[in-house]
Structure formats: C-alpha cells, structure tokens
C-alpha cells in the first residue's frame, strides 16, 4: 500500500522528442488511477517512468515519500503487467510467477505457498505446470497478473493489458481486474486508450493529451463536467456532438441556424457548442431540425445520425449530429426530427484553446 507522487515530471528523448511535458499528480493509497489518451500521448511513457524503465528527464517521482528517480526498477517495489504479457516462454506458469521471488532470495517453501495462493485467487491453479504457449490469451493474461500479485508490490502498473484479448474476454477480464484490485486494495495505475475501460475501471481518471494532463477526476465528473473540448470528446460514447458556432450577443449562430438561450460569451471568437447525444430529446418546439441520415440499432438504444437544418454549408463532419434514443423511435431515412436540449447541459468551448467557457 502506498501513495505515489509526481512532481513536474518531464521526459525528453535524446533525439529531442518531448513525450511528457510536466505532470503533477498525487495518487492516494489504494486508489485505481487510469491514464487514458490517444496513442502517442505519453501515457505509456509516464507509466514506464514510474516503473523505472525510462529515465526521468526532469521532476521527481515519489512512492510513499521516497524519491525513486534513480532507484532501480527492482527496488521500487512495483509490479507491471505488459500488453503482450511478457511471460518467460521457457518457464512454466509456476516458474514465471516465482522468478521474481527467487531473485529476492525468498525461501522455497514460502514461494510455493505464495504462488499457490495467487494462483487460486486467479483460478489458474490447474495450469501451474504448463508453459505459456499451452495457454489461451485470457489465461496468459491471468498468469501475467499472477506474476505481479505474488510479489505483493506497493504499486501495480498495467500497460494496456487487455488490448490483445478479444472483445468478450476483455469485458470479462476488466471486471476481474476491478474485483481483484478492490480485494487486494493495492494502489494501481492503468494505461489504456479505450475510454470504456477507463470509465469502468477508474477511481480517478487522468485524460492525457500531447504529454500533458488535460483533466483529472472521477469518471462521472469528467463525463459531466469536462474542462476542455478534448476531454469532452474523448470521454463518452457515442462522442459528444460538436457544432462550430459564433456568438452574436444573444444567440449562437451557425449559418442559418440560430440558437438562443446563452449569455456572457465572447463575440467574434470561434466557439464550439458541445451537446452529448443522450442530452438531446424529441420535442415539437426544439432548437434543432435533424434530417435523418443513418439509424444504428444497438438493441436497447438507437443512434440516429444526420445533419442539422441550417448548417448545410458546413463540412460534412462538422454538421454530423448524433441523437441517442430508445429502440422504439425508428424514423424513416430522409425524414426530419425536431430535437431540443436543455441549455443547462450544453457546453461551450473556445475553439482555438479548447477551454470550456460555459
């Protein structure tokens, strides 16, 4: 059990590429933190710096108030689960799990006991004497987790551990990881680019973009109250609808579309109106007229895509709107729907900086 502190952490590669541009973060004891962001945003680099696999260019990292910048990976008391599992192919499952303990000079009897405990916790007890190539993807993933667990580290690090699994198994393992973390109550940091994984696993979520933390908070807070356009569009599925607008003093305007109900916004700057697909509703006097383009039936919900009347001159992407409704509403293509939204729940961003204004 431990807390982790990052102060002004930066990473610059020898070739001048900057991967992480100053990260400050405090992770509490037993917390499950997820780093989420698009590929190449620096989330993995950050995790690997905590693990000690990458040198820290600037700033410092502390685990339990001990500075670990120059401590070797083995002595940081962290364990890591890799995307491709990184199991030692020539060792049995037991060998894989006990290797770290053996290197730490733990007596044999104790190793056996710990390995068997961890194996039964992960339900891999029957495979202890098999080799990794005789196991399925999910089982290998469990072994990789077992190897981390037996060490009883202060911090677990997960580097996209589920991305090599198929969709169904991924959901199952996701739940298992969450359950395991609850049970062991070990501080965990989990890196993923999958926002569903991030939302469902995290106690707190750090959305990372271009080497910086865009926003950090509980998943629902980030969903309801994103600080930037990037966070708003990264969190939530289907994506938030983004409509480029300007403010004329009373209304938000895009082409012939005029949306009233907003005050106190800067004029003459380019703004973006963000409305989540589930915040739209059908209403006779709604602000939008949507021409139906595509209807996706997901079972319980239908996603209706189309262009807003009045915004036709926009690029196709800018005008595309999504409306999430239940399965009973199934409009014919090319018909129109009248949609309304609650101005309280709409978000307005400055396009240039991505900062939220309202």
């Amino acid at each position, binding site marked *: 059990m431990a807390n982790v502190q990052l102060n002004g952490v930066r990473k610059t590669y020898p070739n001048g590429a900057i991967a992480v541009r100053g990260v400050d973060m405090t992770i509490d004891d037993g917390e499950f933190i997820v780093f989420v962001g698009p590929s190449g945003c620096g989330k993995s680099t950050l995790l690997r710096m905590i693990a000690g696999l990458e040198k820290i260019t600037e700033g410092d990292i502390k685990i339990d108030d001990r500075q670990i910048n120059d401590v070797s*990976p083995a002595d940081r008391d962290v364990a890591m689960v890799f995307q491709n599992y*990184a199991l030692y192919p020539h060792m049995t499952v037991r060998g894989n799990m006990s*290797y770290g303990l053996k290197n730490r000079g733990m007596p044999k009897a104790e190793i056996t006991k710990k390995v068997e405990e961890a194996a039964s916790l992960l339900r891999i007890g029957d495979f202890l004497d098999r080799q990794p190539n005789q196991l399925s993807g999910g089982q290998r993933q469990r072994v990789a987790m077992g190897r981390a667990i037996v060490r009883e580290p202060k911090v677990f690090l997960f580097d996209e551990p589920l991305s090599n699994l198929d969709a169904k198994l991924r959901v199952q393992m996701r739940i298992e990881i969450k359950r395991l973390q609850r049970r062991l109550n070990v501080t965990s940091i989990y890196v993923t680019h999958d926002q569903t994984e991030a939302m469902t696993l995290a106690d707190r979520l750090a959305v990372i973009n271009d080497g910086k933390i865009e926003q950090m908070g509980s998943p629902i807070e980030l969903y309801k109250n994103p600080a930037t356009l990037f966070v708003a569009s990264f969190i939530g599925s289907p994506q938030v609808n983004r409509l480029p607008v300007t403010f004329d003093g009373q209304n938000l305007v895009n082409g012939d579309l005029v949306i009233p109900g907003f005050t106190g916004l800067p004029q003459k700057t380019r703004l973006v109106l963000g409305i989540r697909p589930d915040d739209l509703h059908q209403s006779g006097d709604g602000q939008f007229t949507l021409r139906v383009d595509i209807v996706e039936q997901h079972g319980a919900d239908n996603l209706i895509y189309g262009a807003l009347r009045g915004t036709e001159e926009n690029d196709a992407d800018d005008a595309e709107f999504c409306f999430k409704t239940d399965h009973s509403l199934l409009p014919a293509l090319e018909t129109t729907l009248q949609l309304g939204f609650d101005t309280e729940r709409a978000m307005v961003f400055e396009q240039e900086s991505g900062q939220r204004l309202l």
Partner: protein
Amino acid sequence: MSNWNWRLITTHAILIIGVLFMSLPVWVAFATSTHAPETILRDGLQIWPGGHFFETYREVLIVDGGVMKSVLGTTMLKNSMILGIGFAIGKVIVSMLAAYAIVYFRFRLAVPLFWIIFMTLLLPLEVRIIPSYEVVAGLGLLDTHFGLIVPLIASATGTFFFRQFFRSVPDELLEAARLDGATAWGFFVDILIPLSKTMIAAILIIMFVVGWNQYLWPLIMTTKEENYTLVIGIKQIYQILAEGGELPQYQKAFALTILATFPPVLVVLVFQNWFVKGLVESEK
C-alpha cells in the same frame, strides 16, 4: 499426365545423380579401405567391399605403429574430438557474450565495435597465422590443446548470429526481468540462454564440423605426433607409408579418411532436427 511423369522422372534423375556425385567418392574410399594393399596396387580403386575390414581398421585404430610411427588412430580421433568440441563450445561462449554486450548494453562505440567485429570476417586465421603463431609460441603453448583452440574461438559469424537472435527477443522480457529483480547476469543465464537453446545447438553443430576440419592451424601448431588430429594424420600418412620401400598401405590412408569423415556426419545426422529448428524458427 505423361507430362507430369516426365517431370517426375527428370527431377528424380537429377536428384539421384546429385546423391551419387556426393556419396560415391566416400563409398569408393570405404570400399577400397577394406581391401589388401596388393589388390589396390594391382587393380586401383575398388567399388565393392573386400575382406580386410577388421584387419585394416584394427591396425589403424589400436595397433602400435600400425598407421604412424608412434601415435594410434584412437589418439588422433581423441585429439580431433577435443579440437572440435573445444572449438565449438569456445566459439559459442565467446560469441554469445559478445552479442549480449552489443545488444543489451548501451555503451559508447557499441555500433562501431560491432562492425569492427563483423569486419574480422575478412581476416580469417590464414591471414593472421604468423602473428598468431608468434603469440602462441611466445606463451609456450605450442603442442597444447589450449594453444590449439583458443586462437580459433573468436567468431564474428557466431556473434552476428546471436546478435540477430537477441535483437528479435521482445524488449518486454528484459523489462519484466528487471522488474523481477534479475541482474544482468541473471537475465543472461535465466532467460536468454534457455531461449537461445536451439540456436546454441545449431551453432555448436556447425562449429564442431568446422573445428573438426581445421587443417592449417593444427598443422603448424603441432610438432609431436601424439598431438596430431585425424585431418593432419591423413596428410602425414602418405609420407610415412611411402617410406621404407615397403608396399604403400593405401587401405590405411582410406580408412583414416573414412574415420575423419564419419564423426561430423554422425553429429549432423543425429542433431539435424535441432539444427534446422535453430536456423529457421525461434520460440519466443
């Protein structure tokens, strides 16, 4: 159909000719070695085995003075074995360690160093044989197994093979091992060596054959008969047999040739599965 038959026949014919071309000389050498010297002198090379198999091979292998002035065939066989095995093991150890350093340690000049090692491929022993001899002689190691083997074991080929193999091992294995508290030596012994098993076997086999067939270096290095390898023995036997006005003992020369050929063939036959595995696939 007939077209297909013709193709089958021609391909087989080519293959059979190839096989005969490769194996007939060996067979002739064997058949000739089982005849009496008079027959060979009178009728030349023999295609069918004769009746002197046990006699010839017994004299070559274990009868004192049967083949050389003093050294027995078995001693030469032993010397060849020591050279072949020592050469192979030495090469594998040196080149694995070199490749490990080049691939896994970030030190300055690692890349230029690798290319320097690689360039030594252009400098085989034959080119540096005089300085090598000087060094070995200066150390008083002439006529020793140690002096025979050590100058041969630096291997650019082996280093290159292992370097390519190590580079294909996923980085995550190293990272996992580091997190598991493995030292540099621990990672090498516990992870890399077991992973390279088939590769090691393949290189051991190749190098055994190369070592076994060494000719020039042992010829220069050894002055005493009891240090002769089989390959040197073959060369010397003609000199010895021609002396003394007796009937030249050609059958013994052929027997020695067969003895020199046999062990490498056996090694390759027995280990060919490993050999192929090591060169074409790698378990990762």
